[in-house]
């Protein structure tokens, strides 16, 4: 933590941490505690006063079928996004790690979607799937699928999942590739001498050895799907049709800024914060002690 050799105590270190602490206090800790406080309040319809109601907002949340649906939807959404993007990244990394010729080219071509903002990814996909003009609905029409994600909730959900997973493949690919390249060659060679083919080597040696990376990516992808996909949802479906793509983070925004239900929105924020804290703790525990064999 601290250097064995260090500078003597003086006012200087306080000055050094002051900017970061000030920003943390003003823009992180104060708002977060405000959210916590507001989640115990109910504001009257005219915004004139508010009443302290303890856990009523939370009780309302747990009794609210819309919220529970959104919770379930978020779970399905994030599991599917994580599975789709991690699965394809694993497949691509598995093959990319074998390839010698053109390895650099493939890597470059696979990583740049990382730089695309989620909302732009949404815009790109919504353009490709535009019901009247888009390229995919045009071809889907030939096989008898009538695509309209403005009307069909299932299709809207598939579209946001596709867009969210597409953007995240690059990130997962990089981490998988790095993990696979750090496996000592001797292990793989020994397996090859024993007569294990590429597929078998992958499942019995490479895949177990990169399981720490898989676990790490799982947490990161869940956090991504929970929070950063806001832009995609906002651009592609705005939570609709109906509420078929309203995930939790979109609901916080919508109830707070559009519906102006401050107490309810704050209670939802607190639930989300608790979720993030759990995920961070899980991730850090994992960093502390890696999976061992």
């Amino acid at each position, binding site marked *: 933590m601290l*250097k064995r050799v260090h500078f003597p105590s003086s006012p*200087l270190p*306080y000055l050094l*941490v002051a900017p970061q602490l000030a920003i943390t206090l003003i823009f992180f800790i104060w708002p977060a505690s405000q959210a916590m406080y507001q989640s115990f309040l109910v504001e009257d319809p005219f915004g004139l006063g508010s009443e302290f109601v303890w856990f009523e907002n939370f009780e309302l949340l747990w009794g609210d079928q819309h919220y529970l649906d959104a919770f379930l939807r978020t779970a399905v959404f994030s599991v599917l996004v994580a599975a789709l993007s991690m699965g394809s990244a694993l497949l691509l990394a598995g093959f990319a790690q*074998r*390839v010698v010729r053109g390895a650099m080219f493939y890597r470059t071509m696979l990583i740049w979607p990382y730089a695309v903002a*989620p909302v732009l990814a949404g815009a790109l996909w919504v353009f490709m799937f535009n019901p009247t003009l888009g390229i995919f609905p045009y071809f889907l029409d030939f096989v008898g699928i009538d695509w309209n994600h403005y009307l069909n909730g299932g299709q809207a959900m598939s579209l946001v999942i596709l867009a969210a997973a597409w953007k995240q493949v690059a990130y997962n690919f990089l981490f998988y590739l790095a993990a696979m390249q750090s496996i000592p060659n001797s292990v793989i060679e020994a397996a090859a001498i024993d007569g294990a083919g590429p597929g078998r080597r992958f499942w019995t040696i490479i895949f177990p050895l990169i399981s720490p990376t898989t676990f790490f990516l799982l947490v990161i992808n869940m956090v991504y799907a929970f929070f950063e996909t*806001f832009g995609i949802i906002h651009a592609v479906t705005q939570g609709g049709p109906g509420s078929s793509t309203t995930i939790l983070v979109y609901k916080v925004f919508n109830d707070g800024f559009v519906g102006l239900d401050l107490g309810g929105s704050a209670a939802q*924020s607190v639930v989300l914060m608790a979720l993030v804290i759990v995920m961070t703790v899980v991730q850090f525990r994992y960093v502390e002690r890696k999976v061992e064999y």
Partner: protein
Amino acid sequence: MIENRPFTSFLSHLILILGVIAIALPIWITFVAATHNELRMNQTPLPLWPGTYLWENLQKTLFGKGLSGSETAPVWMMLLNSLAMAMMISVGKIAISLLSAFAIVYFKFPFRMTCFWMIFITLMLPVEVRILPTFEVVANLGLLNSYWGLSIPLIASATATFMFRQVFLTVPDELLESARIDGAGPMRFFWDILLPLSRTNIAALFVILFIFGWNQYLWPLLITTDTSMTTIVMSIKQMLEAAEQSPQWNIIMTTALLAMVPPIFVVISMQKLFVQGLTETDK
């Protein structure tokens, strides 16, 4: 390569090429859309091969009034706003994290661990979960519609502080000892020894933070109401909304292309730093 298996090699290339195509397809379609005129973009099936209107579309998008029927700032202005925001966020984050990591690693002072934990907490509070109260704070400070309001609330960063802490911990103690024998004070040591030593880490972090800053969406959306402050990334959403009345997809997709090019350029041209930054900050 361990054994020679022509079929597996062939399969690897095939899968990778298919993967590259699947990844690149959305961007390719965007690019194609940016090279056709409005008329062509309203006929199905949409083109899959570039046309000849790229230059015209670029001019229209950059210096025109944006979409007809929507009130947006000219796109060159949004690009400047995005650039300013991304630069302020990345430079600000790097500066304050360097300073606080320096204090935490090299000084022993009361409440050192308290400071550390307070910074650590920010890791757990993404802007999405505390939008409403943070918005109120920024509004009370009168920072709406300003570059400061756009960037400062996003500046505090636990990840960057941790990364620099990690880097500083690997710096040999002898360097500090010899610096002190030579009579260097803390700031001199920081400036002349620590900073040069962590140059590549700073560069790698900058690449990641630039992309992070450039791609901010929710926050600028909330705190900018003045069209002259809109960033390019958030303008896409307004354009998509306007597209329902006047589907000028060539202009919308040209804007999307312009919004994507700077961060993609950064990733590709500084690939090594990018990979380093990504793996260092998240682990």
